[in-house]
């Protein structure tokens, strides 16, 4: 090979690699751009809602009941009360059931048995069922016979609870699994029974993880609109429910939907303000979850 030929070959290689460098740069820019789609939308969405709703936000807005005739005097008290009642009632349902299921699957279930594998596959599939379908389940069996609760807070809470139960179970299982087996073995070696070991060692050790999972599940539950629509909850009410087993109720997502779909733009503004109330509740809950995780999480 002559010197010239070698030079040409080198040039070709260099040109190819320079072309490749340009391509790499464009590719990297495109990737960053796609990352921007989610970020920019999130940013624009938050700014948009704040600008639209911020000026309507006041203590009166939170304490007044919604009004069909006067947007200025309309508020979200019944929706906030409904959402908080739903949250507490749902928690009372999903904590025992979710944690018990997680303990069963992690500490007792023999994976070689078909019924235990069925439970696992089943939970995986339930997590992907659309929320509106849970609404139909609630309508068919909880609102109507056999439970026949009617459209009350308890019916809404059970429906939402079934919807988010897979979240609690999955997170609680991870937390239980993270407790090292040496802890269990130590407890068993000292003569504790299987259940005593779970109750005194495994559960306390996994509590921060479980609490995080419960908060995550509840924040998903209170943001849900579709299941509550399907079971027939009111879009807004001018009263708070007296208790969870009687009276019509509403919740923040439903009242937001009512405001947002009103033809009157003043009500749409109230929708944005109500969204800010909902987002504030969610921020507080998630901050609580982060705090719990950082404060109490054990490193084994």
């Amino acid at each position, binding site marked *: 090979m002559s010197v010239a030929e070698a030079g040409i070959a080198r040039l070709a290689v260099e040109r190819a690699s320079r072309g*490749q*460098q340009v*391509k790499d740069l464009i*590719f*990297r820019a495109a*990737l960053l751009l*796609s*990352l921007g*789609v*989610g*970020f920019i*939308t*999130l940013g624009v*969405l938050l700014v*948009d809602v704040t600008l639209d709703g911020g000026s309507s936000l006041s203590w009166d807005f939170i304490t007044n009941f919604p009004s069909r005739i006067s947007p200025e005097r309309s508020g979200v008290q019944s929706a906030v009360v409904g959402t908080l009642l739903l949250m507490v009632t749902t928690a009372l349902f999903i904590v025992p*059931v979710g944690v*018990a*299921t997680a303990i069963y699957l992690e500490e*007792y*279930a023999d994976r070689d048995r078909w019924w235990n594998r069925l*439970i696992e596959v*089943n*939970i*995986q*599939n*339930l997590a*992907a*069922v*659309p*929320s*509106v*379908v849970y*609404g*139909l*389940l609630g309508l*068919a069996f909880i609102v*109507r016979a056999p439970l026949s609760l009617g459209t009350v807070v308890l019916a809404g809470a059970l429906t939402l609870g*079934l919807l988010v*139960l897979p979240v609690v*179970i999955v997170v609680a299982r991870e937390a239980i699994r993270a407790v090292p087996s040496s802890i269990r073995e130590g407890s068993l070696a000292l003569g504790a*029974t*299987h*259940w005593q070991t779970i109750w005194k060692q495994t559960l306390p050790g996994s509590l921060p993880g479980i609490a995080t999972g419960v908060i995550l599940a509840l924040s998903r539950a209170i*943001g*849900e*609109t*579709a299941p509550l*629509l*399907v079971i*027939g909850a009111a879009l807004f009410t001018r009263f708070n429910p007296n208790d969870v087993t009687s009276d019509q109720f509403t919740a923040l*997502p439903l009242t*937001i*939907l009512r405001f*947002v*779909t009103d033809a009157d733009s003043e009500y*749409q503004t109230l929708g*944005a303000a109500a*969204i800010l109330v*909902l*987002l504030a509740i969610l921020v507080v809950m998630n901050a609580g979850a982060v705090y719990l995780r950082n404060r109490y999480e054990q490193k084994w």
Partner: protein
Amino acid sequence: MGEQVIKVLLALAALISVLTTTGIVVALIRDSIKFLEEVGVTDYFFGTKWTPLAGGDQQSFGVVPLIYNTLYLTAIGMLVAVPAGLGSAIYLSEYASPRFRRIVKPIIEVLAGVPTIVFGYFALTFVTPLLRDIGIDVSTFNALSAGLVLGVLVLPTIATVADDALSSVPQSLREGAFGLGASRMQVAVRVVFPAALSGIVAGVVLGASRAIGETVVILVAAGQLANLTLDPQEQMQSMAAFIAATSQADVSTQGVEGLTLFAVGLTLFVMTLLLNSISIRFVRKYRQVYE
């Protein structure tokens, strides 16, 4: 003795999840059968006019437009979510520094935690007017705006699952490719991406299943009319949005109108269940290879 009782109680709790599935299937099938007896299988599955709440002669139960609209809206969403979600995942797994990842991943999770009603408000009051401002002549309720926002809504699902899949590709494959002189892009596109393909497909399928079942964005921004049109500027109604809208419309619980909820619910349930099983299958495939 006490230990046995506790085990039984725990197992009963676990049984609730199985009962939930059974309940869903029973509720949907029971009323769907009644519905099909009244309407007829052919009229439901092959009818091209969906006006179940109209009176007299105008009433028609052909589900084709509803399914078509659901898939159409999902397709618009996926046009946004697949490139943006996969692009985000590739950047996070192949380019981002650990510090960048630590900051950015939680923000993507925040996006996934925003209630859907907020996205509905955003589509109706921000995206639709924006589309008009840039010269696209959309009606107040339209498929385009709802579909685009639907895409942003399922983007985190696709990005998270795809990122997991890409990150689980062994480092040795990357090092081998770099050693042969490949550039970063070549490693990402020709080595890591194909190696993680089954996990990526799983994420995309799961995203599509989310989009198909999403209710509120479409209810708020896309309108209430199932429409056999190709024009994304017009209004459309998905299956989930129909169920939500109709349950508000005070239909009689025993009449055939009330039964449509369950027939459409069963159709939707079967579609998402199929997609979810496909997704689970793909996830298993990549786990078997690398773990």
